[in-house]
């Protein structure tokens, strides 16, 4: 269980970092999304992994920690909103500049 979760987080992070280092905006955004999935899983695991344990006292013998779940919920909402914002900006940049390269300095209009 621990190994599986750790491997998943590792693979998601690796994929995220690889995509983030690409030159076009769409892979970069995908990379950021993968990274935020990895982070959400990691946050979830920070309350220790437990099987068949609800985060409510009285439902099971050993309830799990509810706080990381609340943190993950907040983090998911925020990263969802941020992804929407960056997508809109990427589309706007693409429409305005005519290309979707994410590096600056390639376009004479960048200095303006």
């Amino acid at each position, binding site marked *: 269980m621990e190994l599986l979760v750790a491997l998943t987080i590792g693979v998601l992070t690796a994929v995220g970092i690889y995509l*983030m280092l690409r030159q076009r*905006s769409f892979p*970069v*955004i995908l990379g*950021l999304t993968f*990274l*935020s999935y*990895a*982070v*959400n899983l*990691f*946050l979830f*695991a*920070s*309350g*220790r992994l437990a099987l068949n344990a609800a985060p409510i006292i009285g439902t099971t013998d050993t309830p799990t*920690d509810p*706080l*990381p779940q609340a*943190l993950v919920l*907040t*983090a998911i909402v*925020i*990263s969802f*909103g*941020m992804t929407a*914002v*960056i997508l809109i*900006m*990427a589309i*706007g*940049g693409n429409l*305005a*500049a005519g290309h979707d390269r*994410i590096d*600056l300095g390639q*376009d004479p*209009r*960048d*200095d*303006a």
Partner: protein
Amino acid sequence: MTHWIIAPIVLPALAAALMLLALRGSLALQRLLSVAAILGLCAIAAALLMLVTKTGPEAYFLGDWPAPFGIVLVLDRLSALMLALLAGLALPVVIYAIGSDWDARGAHFHPLLQFLLMGIGGAFLTGDAFNLFVFFEVMLIASYGLMVHGGGAGRTRAGLQYVAFNLVGSSLFLVALGLLYSVTGTLNLADLAEKLPHLPDGDTALLRVAAVMLIMVFAIKAALVPLQFWLPGTYAAAPGVVAAIFAVMTKVGVYATLRFATLVFPPALHATDLLIAAFLLPAGLATLGLGAVGVLGASTLPRLAAFAGIASTGTIIIAIAHLTPEGTAAALYYTLHSTLATALIFLLADLIDRRRADLRLDHPAPVANPGLMGALFLIAALALAGMPPLSGFVGKLLILDAWQDHMLQVWAAVLVTSFLMILGFARAGSLLFWKPTEAAPPIRPEPVALLAPFVLLAGLVALTVLAGPIHDWLRVAADDLHYPKAYIDANHLAKGD
């Protein structure tokens, strides 16, 4: 418990919501409400400043949940000071935005500005690490909107990079918070300060990773070398008036670094020891050096302003890295100075660029009303380079005084970079003002916009004239930070598990 502590968060939030819901169609009413809300924020910040001077740290329990289970806002001298700085900067910025019609060049300038003030104010006040993350995000999402205000291909593309960089920063922040929570089971700052000294030895490694990641996140916000790459492009591409209010956003990173380095990971904490200081001093020195070289080589005035801002953040970090009350007091004084001075140079960059036909510094183009612009530029340059008679000189003197024991590194760095910055400003100033080829094109007079630099200037002069009493007050604030018993006690932590 006084309810005024939450007012700096609630007031801008209400103002922004009202503008979006009821005043959508009328820029004039939005302007009126925006100025009124900021004046209100100034009054509240001043009242809180007096309150904290009288009573010491005080906590506000959201929903009346006891700490560490609920979220708590803590007002201490540092947070009251930063709030006052925020309100004091927002006033000239909003005056300038109205006077120069920047707010009419795109939708929703004033609501976004209010949301930005709410996020920054919340970040200064909160006593909970996860809540700090949330307020960072509030601040950032408002800043994304402000950054691309007015549109244009270059600005939107620079904005995209800015957002991507900050999303990575937010992810790192969450990982660090997860690590902190996994070893301590709490995210309340005062509770962390209580629990970390009793951490079992096996968890030390995780805690050190968390500490380094947190400092990295704050270094991204504060734009410390080697994480400064996003700043020059972003701030130079942002509208001048937005860059001026962003001057306080890098200070949020500085604030968070100072809070964590003194409260959560103090030098006395065995697990992290001098880890933080070991990172901060080289980063501060490198940031200062890079900023000074950038000032010397900047191609446009907004880039010059951005690098001057980087250099001043580096100077603050050097002072913080001393991790003593003397160093912290100097850092706080320099923070006040550098925020006002950086905002001043950004506003000036915008004012001067509107008076020239060409944006590049090395292309000859005359400046309209060169006398006034030249004089203001000279004053801003003196302030930023740390020359007498303005407060930058006092600030640098305090920092040098705190670092007497390590004269060689720090003194050399601060003095040499001051010289480089003087050269850089002299180069820019002579390129701009000493080549009067032909008459400049006539421009529309903007008396209201011109008021803003003078408000900032008045702040710098007040900081210089009142340097003595202000420094005494800051010294008490620094003592409170380094001996945080009053801060922790204000949380009334629930005892026992």
